[in-house]
């Protein structure tokens, strides 16, 4: 369903991705792991057009995404929650959410999607009229995920959702993502430095190091491989 072939990304002279290939099956949650600077975020950014790939291809449901603008990629059913969440602080919680679904033309559908988000995230419903900058880190993460889901995507890219959050909140977010995927068949690509948390909810995993794929396989196998864990994942 999603095929990344030999993707190379560089920021000027610095190479971030050095020929990465992976494939994701529908409905499967895949973790993308590795240390800081391994290229995980660059992978997601190249997939959604935030940065132009030097070479290689990204193909989603038969369409090549590699040269498209971000807004066009999103309109093909891909949602990306960026690193740092990207919550628009000057807008209200509700405006942030609504924004996620605006490109869809069916107004009824958008209204229903908003209600569904409020059911899924009651904390957001309580704060719907507040400015987004008043939210805590965990609430912002929920807002960012909810906003991405408003467009009913088929593929959700999550970039380091646990960043800066307390362990108990991290556990909540992970549980949420797992529930989402189980309930709706959403395909998730989860980039995380917190490998333990990510592996607990993923079926498959890809480990990156210095811009290359070093291991790819079932999440359970990777979690069980102590040497690998110590070497690349820090636990």
């Amino acid at each position, binding site marked *: 369903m999603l095929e990344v072939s030999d993707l190379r990304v560089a920021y000027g002279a610095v190479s971030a991705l050095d020929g990465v290939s992976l494939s994701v099956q529908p409905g499967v949650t895949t973790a993308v792991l590795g240390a800081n600077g391994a290229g995980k975020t660059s992978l997601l950014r190249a997939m*959604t*057009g*935030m940065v132009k790939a030097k070479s290689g291809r990204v193909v989603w449901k038969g369409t090549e995404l590699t040269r498209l*603008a*971000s*807004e066009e990629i*999103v*309109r093909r059913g891909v*949602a*990306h929650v*960026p690193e740092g969440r*990207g919550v*628009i*602080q*000057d*807008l209200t919680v509700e*405006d942030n959410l*609504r*924004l*996620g679904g*605006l*490109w869809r033309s069916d107004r009824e559908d958008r209204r229903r999607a908003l209600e569904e988000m409020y059911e899924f995230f009651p904390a957001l419903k309580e704060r719907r009229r507040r*400015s987004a900058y008043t939210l805590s880190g965990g609430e912002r993460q929920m807002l960012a995920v909810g*906003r*991405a889901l408003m*467009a009913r995507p088929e593929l959700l890219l999550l970039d380091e959702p646990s960043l800066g959050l307390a362990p108990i909140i991290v556990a909540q977010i992970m549980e949420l993502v797992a529930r989402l995927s189980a309930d709706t068949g959403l395909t998730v690509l989860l980039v995380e430095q917190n490998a333990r948390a990510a592996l607990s909810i993923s079926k498959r995993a890809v480990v990156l190091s210095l811009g290359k794929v070093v291991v790819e396989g079932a999440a359970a196998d990777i979690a069980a491989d102590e040497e690998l864990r110590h070497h690349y994942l820090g636990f």
Partner: protein
Amino acid sequence: MVYAAMAMALVLIWRATRVVNFAQGAMAMFSTYVAVSVIDRGGNYWEALVVALVFGFAAGAVVERVLVRPVESKPPLNAVIVTLGLLILVESGAAMIWGDSLRSYPSRFSQTGLKLGGQRVALSPFDLYIIGAVLVVMAGLVVLFRATSLGLRMRASAFEPEVARLLGVRVGRMLTLGWALAAVVGALGGILVAPKVFLDPNNMDDVLVYAFTAAIVGGLDSPVGALVGGLGMGLSLSYVGGYLGYSLETVGAFVILIVVLMVRPEGLFTTTTPRRV
């Protein structure tokens, strides 16, 4: 009142693109000249107004696409230089096309003061027309930004263009629309005031300074603030002009600007934290 209209246009562009347009006044002046051309060819006030507004809208869109788009992602200084360059270009262009001597602009409404209880008051039907027009435009803008999805998309495109793209917003179009709208408001401002201020290629320079100050006083994020700032500026500057001499009006404007920037940089009506200008 004029300051309020121009200030609104500046605020609008600031909200829509985070770029301050130094050529705002010049573009408005150019549109007003276009209106005069229509009148010269026998059109009436309203036809001239409509033509100039359409022209303003198109000009704003073209300027954004051709001149501003390439510098949007570069440091803010580039955009400043581009709009300053545009200012010089437009003023010289107007002078070349229409000559740089003063011209008068016909007024649709009487400019003599209304009679109130037998006394002539310093408020004419023309003044009422200006106030009415400004209020209508302002109401329209507030509705656009607060209550419509289009307004939401425009604001998102201005605040966080990258994030907006990730949410499927066609940011490029929103920016072009923002510029076009601002150009229309500016053109309206120019035409509204033209009967009072004779038309010449440089007539908007002072107004630009006043309007910019008004926008900063009110807060660059707030149309209401821009309106109040504009009215406040108009009033204070009349006092300065009246008591201290007209040449000091511009100085007065700068003094107000400096005081506000020192005391409350985010303006009197914003709720967000101050941003670098």
